[in-house]
């Protein structure tokens, strides 16, 4: 069809590569998204404390990770973390291997990148909340920690969920850059396959479709979450 040749797809080895690639992409995306959300919440909580040096620190973190290319961050993480010389002996092979695998470096750098964006999102969610809601919580005896987790975070999460969806889809797509530091995710195996078969266009079309499906599942799930968490007066809850 259209002169495209997909006969290589019948090869179980290539099927296995694609499957492994998808699984690793999902692992990387899930791990870094979860950590990014956690960083986002903790960072936003840190900002509510209004401690001068902590504000400055969080601000610096956000600026650095938001304003530099994630690919560069990943390369940076890979080369600095692996050159720290942290090595362990793999008990099964007896070989000395770096403590932090390429996967770990990619996960760390994507978590930090996503975390910086998530801090911004949660922060703006908290800032758009009427001041009197916080005063009400204080006057009811809620301390800082309880106030954040019981009141500010639940409300801010609903406010910033659309922004968070954007961040997570972005992060998902950015996982493909981990192929550059040899993380065996989908994009990495795609390269392997077309180097083998020279069917570059066919492989790219297939991988594109896989990304479309995976990201669509993510945005669909986020839309459902948004509908589920909606409450009257905010966002979709009108």
């Amino acid at each position, binding site marked *: 069809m259209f002169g495209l040749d997909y006969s290589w797809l019948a090869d179980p080895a290539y099927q296995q590569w694609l499957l492994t690639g998808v699984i690793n992409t999902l692992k990387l995306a899930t791990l870094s998204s979860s950590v990014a959300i956690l960083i986002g919440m903790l960072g936003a909580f840190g900002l509510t404390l209004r401690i001068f040096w902590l504000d400055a620190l969080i601000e610096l973190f956000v600026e650095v990770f938001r304003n530099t290319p994630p690919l560069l961050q990943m390369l940076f993480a890979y080369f600095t973390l692996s050159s720290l010389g942290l090595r362990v002996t793999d008990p099964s092979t007896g070989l000395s291997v770096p403590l932090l695998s390429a996967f770990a470096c990619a996960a760390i750098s994507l978590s930090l990148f996503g975390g910086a964006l998530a801090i911004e999102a949660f922060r703006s969610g908290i800032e758009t909340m009427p001041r009197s809601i916080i005063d009400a919580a*204080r006057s009811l*005896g809620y301390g800082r920690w309880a106030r954040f987790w019981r009141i500010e975070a639940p409300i801010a999460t609903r406010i910033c969920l659309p922004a968070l969806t954007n961040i997570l889809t972005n992060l998902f797509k950015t996982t493909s850059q981990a192929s550059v530091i040899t993380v065996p995710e989908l994009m990495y195996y795609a390269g392997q396959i077309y180097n083998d078969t020279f069917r570059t266009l066919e492989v790219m079309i297939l991988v594109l479709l896989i990304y479309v499906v995976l990201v669509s599942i993510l945005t669909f799930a986020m839309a459902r979450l948004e509908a589920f968490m909606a409450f009257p007066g905010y966002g979709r809850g009108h």
Partner: protein
Amino acid sequence: MNRIDALIELDNVRKSFGDVPVLKGISMFVQKGEAVCIIGPSGSGKSTILRCINGLIPVDKGFVRVGAHRVHEMKSERQMRALRHQVAMVFQQYNLFPHRTALENIMMAPIQVLGHDRAEVEERARKLLKKVRLSEKADSYPGQLSGGQQQRVAIARALAMQPDVILFDEVTAALDPETVKDVLFAIRELVEEGLTCILVTHEMKFARDVSQRVCFTDHGLIVESAPPAELFDNPRDPRTREFLGQVL
């Protein structure tokens, strides 16, 4: 008045925001069971007085006591917890937590902050909703309630903390005129039951009807303080006279 017997005692309280002095020496006493109204022009420091009483903002100078709590000496939120139990506050608007239903709004703090038993708190909360005539709205979210209904839920929520005092900060100022009446009715009931109340209000007729004493504030000072009949009919200070001339 005997200041030792007073439930609430403020002595020469001063507060500035940056270089701007907002409270310039506020002294007042409130007896148990008394309803005191604070009236005065916008920006004269009325809200700030209430916020100093329940420790939402620290005072710069002076003495604030509520019951056994010396508020001006409290530094951390933890120290304030017992005070927050004793003093409840209702704000002008956006009081309620929008992600929780009316009933949950009332139940949250007694369970989460005071650690009371859930079943007992729910019973209390339903009684309070009934008291403010909103039993049928238990499962509505704040966004589904009118402004007046929200304020009545906020009053029920304050009462659920079983406070000795409630501070009301212009709770009807942002409401449609039709719903003001219901909110004032609910407050009037509390005053008649003997709950100690401090009310910042623009409703002069209401202030005259319910309060035992009215304080007039201007530029961070209590200019005049008297029983309502006296303050409204025979204001002594020219600033009080001017203000009443504008609003009455």
